[in-house]
C-alpha cells in the first residue's frame, strides 16, 4: 500500500497495528502451534505412510482414504456407531433438558433440589460418572441386574455383549449432558416475559398449547445452540468409552475419536490416525459451516 510520507494518521495506524499485534502475539503463537499447524500437519500426514523402524514414510496419496472405505470394516462400524450414538443421545438429552427446564422454571415444591439433582451429573468428571455406572452394569450383583432379577429376568452383561454395549454408554452420556443443556433452556425461559403467559391464559390457551405455540418457537435459538454443542460433543467425548468398554466387545461401542486414539496410541499407526482425524475434522467443520450458513439465517437471534 502506498503511504504518503509523514501522514500522521497513517503513522498512528501503523503504531496501533504493531501494538495490537504485540498484544495478540502470545495467543497467536499458541493457536498456530496447537490448532492451525496441527490441522495442516494432520492433512499432510494423511497422505503418507507411517514411518516404522528403518522404513521412512512414503507418499501414498489417497490410499488411506481408500483403505477406510474398502478395507477397514472397523472404520465403517465406528462411523455407524458414532452416527447412531449422535442420533439417539442428542434428541434424548435435548428433550429431557427441555422438560427439566420447563419443570424447574415452574413454581414446583423443592425447585432448588430439582435443579441441583438435574445439574449435578454435569459437574462430575466423565471418568468418574463412567466408574459409577460401571457398577450399575456389572453382571450378577450390579444394581440393574438386581432389579432385573427381582422381576425374574435373566442376567444381562450390559457392557460385555455387542447388542447392549453401545446403548449402555449412551445412557451415561444422556445422564451427564441433559442437565448441562437444561441450563441454557432455563436461561432462555427466564427471559420470556410473564405477560406472554398471562395473555395466552386470557385467550384460553391450555398450558400445552402455550408451550407448543409460544415457548418452543421462542426457544429455537437456544435449541440451535444446544444442538450444535451436542453434535460436537457426540464426536469429541470418548472418556466413558475408555473407562467403561475400551470400545469393545469387538468394537461394538467404539466411536470415531476412540478409534483415532487406538490407532494412534495403541497401534502407533500415526498416519492412518491422521487420515481418520481428517474425517473427524470434516464432520466438525461441516457442523460449524451449517450453523453459520443455513441455521443462523433461518432462526432470528435477539
Amino acid at each position, binding site marked *: 500500500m502506498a503511504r504518503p510520507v509523514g501522514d500522521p494518521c497513517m503513522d498512528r495506524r501503523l503504531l*496501533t*497495528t504493531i*501494538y495490537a499485534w504485540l*498484544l*495478540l502475539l*502470545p*495467543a*497467536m*503463537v*499458541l*493457536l498456530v502451534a*496447537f*490448532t492451525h499447524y*496441527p490441522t495442516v*500437519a*494432520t492433512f499432510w500426514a494423511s497422505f503418507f505412510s507411517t514411518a516404522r523402524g528403518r522404513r521412512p514414510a512414503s507418499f501414498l496419496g489417497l490410499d488411506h482414504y481408500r483403505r477406510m472405505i474398502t478395507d477397514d470394516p472397523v472404520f465403517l462400524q465406528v462411523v455407524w456407531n458414532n452416527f447412531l450414538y449422535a442420533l439417539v443421545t442428542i434428541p434424548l438429552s435435548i428433550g429431557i433438558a427441555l*422438560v*427439566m427446564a420447563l419443570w424447574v422454571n415452574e*413454581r*414446583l*415444591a*423443592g425447585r432448588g*433440589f430439582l435443579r*441441583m*439433582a*438435574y*445439574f*449435578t*451429573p454435569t*459437574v*462430575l*468428571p466423565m*471418568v*468418574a460418572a463412567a*466408574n*459409577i*455406572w460401571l*457398577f*450399575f452394569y*456389572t453382571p450378577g450383583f450390579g444394581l440393574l441386574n438386581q432389579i432385573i432379577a427381582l422381576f425374574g429376568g435373566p442376567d444381562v452383561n450390559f457392557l460385555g455383549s455387542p447388542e447392549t454395549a453401545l446403548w449402555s454408554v449412551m445412557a451415561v452420556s444422556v*445422564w451427564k449432558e*441433559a442437565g*448441562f443443556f437444561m*441450563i*441454557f433452556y*432455563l*436461561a432462555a425461559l427466564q427471559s420470556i416475559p*410473564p405477560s406472554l403467559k398471562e395473555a395466552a391464559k386470557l385467550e384460553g390457551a391450555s398450558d400445552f398449547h402455550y408451550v407448543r405455540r409460544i415457548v418452543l418457537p421462542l426457544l429455537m435459538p437456544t435449541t440451535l*445452540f444446544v444442538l450444535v*454443542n451436542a453434535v460436537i460433543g457426540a464426536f469429541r467425548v470418548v*472418556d466413558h468409552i475408555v*473407562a467403561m468398554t475400551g470400545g469393545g466387545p469387538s468394537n461394538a461401542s467404539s466411536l470415531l475419536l476412540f478409534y*483415532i*486414539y487406538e490407532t*494412534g*496410541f495403541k497401534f502407533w499407526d*500415526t498416519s492412518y490416525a491422521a487420515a481418520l*482425524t481428517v474425517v*473427524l475434522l470434516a464432520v*466438525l467443520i461441516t457442523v460449524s459451516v451449517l450453523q453459520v450458513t443455513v441455521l443462523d439465517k433461518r432462526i432470528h437471534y435477539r
Partner: protein
Amino acid sequence: MTSAALAQGSAAARIVDAGTRLDHLLVTAGAWLLAVLWILPLLFALWAAFHPPLYAARFDLTAPLTLDNFTRAMAAAPFARYMLNTLMLVTMTLAGQLVISTLAAFAFARLEFWGRDLLFFLVLVQLMITPDVLLVENYRIVSSLGILDTILAIGLPYMASAFGIFLLRQTFKTVPKELDDAARIEGCTTLGILLRVYVPLARPIYVAFGLVSVSFHWNNFLWPLIVTSSVETRPVTVGLQVFASVDQGIDWSVISAATLFTSAPLLIAFLLFQRQFVQSFMRAGIK
C-alpha cells in the same frame, strides 16, 4: 424471589381450579421422580463409599458407616499427589488463559489495525477445531518441545482459548468509550486503562469463564491420559482411571470412594456456589 413475583404467584394460585391443581400435582410428581432417578447414581456411589464392601450392593439401613474405603483407596494409589497435580493444572491453565485472552480480547475489541478480521477469524477456528481432536499431531508437537509428561504439556494447548477471547471481546465492546477517554485524559497508558477500567468492569465474565475453565480442565481426560505417564504429572481423572482399571479388580467400595474423592472438590464447590455455577454456565453459553 421478589415480592412482585410472590404476589403474582399468590394471584395465580387463587385462580387455579381443581383440574389445574391435579395437573400441578402430576407435574411435581414427575419432576421429583426424574430428579430422584437423576441423583440415584450419586447416592449409590455415596452408599458404597461409606459402607463396608459387604454392603456395596446390599441396602440394609442398619449397615455400619465407615471411612475405611477412603483410607484403603488413599493407601492403594497416590490420590493426594494426583489432586495436587490437578490443582496445579487448573491454576496454571486458568492463569495463562486469563492473561492471554485479556490481551487479545482488548486488541480485538478496541484497536483498529491491519489484519484484524483475518486474525479474529483465525482465533474463531479454534471454536470448531479444539486441540483435543488433534491428538496425534499435538502429541508430536508437545514431544518435540521436550515437555512430554509434564503438567505444562497438559495445559499449554488450551492456554490460548478462542472461547475466552471471544467472551471477553464481547464484554469489552460494551464498555462505554467515554470511560476509556476519561482515563486517557487522566494520563493512563493503554495497558493501565485495560487493567483499571476494562478488567474490573468485566469481573462477572471472568468469574464465569474461570468456573467453566476450571470444571473443564478438572474433568478433562483423554489428552492428559496421552501426555502423562507418571505419578508426578497425572491429574485425578487419569489417576482414577489407572487405579480403577489396573489396581482394583472389582472392589466397588474402594472405587466409589476414589471416584467421590476425585470429584469432591468440584462437587462441594458446586453445592456451595450453585447459583454462581449455574449463572456462569449460562453466561458463558449465551454471550
